[in-house]
């Protein structure tokens, strides 16, 4: 049976990304994006619906996210859905679905940063061969 798991989504960060360096020196970044969709309702008027999506990124991607993204930054995220589990402060076991980012495109216009140039795009990606070490790393996430 085919194994498929692919997400492509755009949105704006709802907060500054949370970044951390694990004990083994690996960078990890977590952020949430608000992704909006316009649709015509039963009243024939245009409406907007927003969904909130959690994203996690590793290594070089996490470093670039930490240096380039802030609350409100527009991004395009390519990745896959994964289930993340952790123990909450009250001792209960929690889980959530999030996107493991394989590639992040920063869609911020360069002139928003005071540089008078056309739209500037940066991309970040890492080799798929590192997939297995990501999973070992995320077990160490302290948050």
């Amino acid at each position: 049976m085919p194994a498929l798991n692919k997400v492509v989504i755009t949105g704006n960060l709802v907060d500054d990304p949370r970044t951390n360096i694990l004990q083994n020196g690996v960078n990890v970044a977590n952020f949430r994006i608000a992704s909006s969709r316009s649709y015509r309702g039963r009243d024939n008027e245009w409406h907007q619906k927003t969904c909130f999506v959690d994203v996690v990124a590793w290594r070089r991607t996490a470093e670039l996210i930490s240096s380039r993204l802030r609350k409100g930054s527009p991004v395009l995220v390519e990745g896959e859905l994964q289930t993340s589990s952790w123990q909450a402060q009250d001792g209960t076991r929690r889980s959530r679905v999030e996107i493991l980012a394989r590639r992040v495109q920063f869609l911020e216009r360069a002139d928003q940063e005071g540089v008078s140039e056309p739209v500037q795009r940066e991309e970040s990606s890492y080799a798929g061969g590192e997939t297995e070490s990501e999973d070992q790393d995320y077990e160490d996430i302290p948050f």
Partner: protein
Amino acid sequence: MTSQSNVPPEVNTVVVSGRVVTRKGLSRTSFGAWLLKFSLENSITLPGETPDQTRHKTAIISVQAWGESARKLDRQLKKGSFVIVEGRLSSISYEDRRKVIHHRMELTASDVQILDAPD
């Protein structure tokens, strides 16, 4: 890019495969729309620590199907069916007893293909 600064184009596309692990019965919302909810287990095989080892990475994803698609799936979809779902991510927000707001992600299906059904 749109002409408005910092407003990205609207892109929200998911394609995922897996086995159905739970499914609820067909229901109807207050405005008369058919709704079917199920969850699927997506599993991929990854290399292990040594060349002769493998390990599995599993994700449990909640899916909702609407309208005629939901009615059709209600007749055909079983626990254990292997499916490919195309759709978009959506989220539900709720407040817990401590007034903390949580968001839960779901996949709103635009198309569901059933590749294999349990015996």
